[in-house]
């Protein structure tokens, strides 16, 4: 009986940190009716010093257009390995993109900022369309973008 309890305690102790280290986070991006083709969006994170940490999502599958996501492109050199497995279709004007990701808890309240670069064919590029600090208190609060993004929010 004691060995069973010890085993249960051990497995619980091993499992809980894993569960606590990440949580599902929904990123909701709504675009304006800007009257153009589908927008390419790069969602990525920088640390407190402004250095690129990693990408969370790429909306738009053709890498030849990534240079128009200029801040992301400058930070990554256009390295498509940064967005392997986290790339989907571009987002049409007026549409809402909801992405639910399993994100590390360490991202929140630690000085990280989520950025969105946006680009639309034959229209002006919009780097740093959205820049929002990742904090637990900021979850659920919609923030406006500069040109193509009507609003962005993250929910935990």
């Amino acid at each position, binding site marked *: 009986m004691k060995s069973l309890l010890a085993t249960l305690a051990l497995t619980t102790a091993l499992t809980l940190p894993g569960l606590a280290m990440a949580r599902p986070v929904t990123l909701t991006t709504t675009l304006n009716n800007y009257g153009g083709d589908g927008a390419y969006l790069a969602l990525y994170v920088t640390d407190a010093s402004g250095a690129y940490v990693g990408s969370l999502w790429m909306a738009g599958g053709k890498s030849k257009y990534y240079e128009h996501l200029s801040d992301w492109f400058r930070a990554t050199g256009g390295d*498509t390995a940064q967005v392997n*497995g986290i*790339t989907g279709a571009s987002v049409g004007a007026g549409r*809402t993109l909801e992405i*639910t990701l399993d994100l*590390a808890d360490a991202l929140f309240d630690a000085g990280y900022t989520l950025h969105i670069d946006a680009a639309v064919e034959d229209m002006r590029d919009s780097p740093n369309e959205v820049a929002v600090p990742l904090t637990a208190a900021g979850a659920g609060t919609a923030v406006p973008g500069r040109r193509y993004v009507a609003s962005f929010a993250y929910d935990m």
Partner: protein
Amino acid sequence: MNKTLTILVASTALTAAIGVPAWSSIHRPEGRHDRAVTVLPAEGPQAMSLILASSDDDDDDDHHRRDRPRRGHDDDDHDDDDDDDDDEGGKSGGARNPAPAGTVAPPQNGLFGNGMPPKIKVN
């Protein structure tokens, strides 16, 4: 006698009526063909040189491709192939398109947990 003359005149008239158009129809195409033949050489050198230049270039490209310096694998080909280069990401240093979500695991950049794959919804 009058009857004979009448018949001869009538048959001649019929022959002429039928024969002249027939004769004309036989000779008009020849006349057109002759004109076409005479016109073609006058216009021919330009048209033929354009066609031959194009086809010769294509042949040369195919045969001597190995001997030419190459910037990319489609440099010597037609313009359509140049477009294909762009589609494969030529502007970004020849990078390939990224793997779509769900086909491979997200990158190990420290941002993701090891749990569920990304879920996408577009409204």
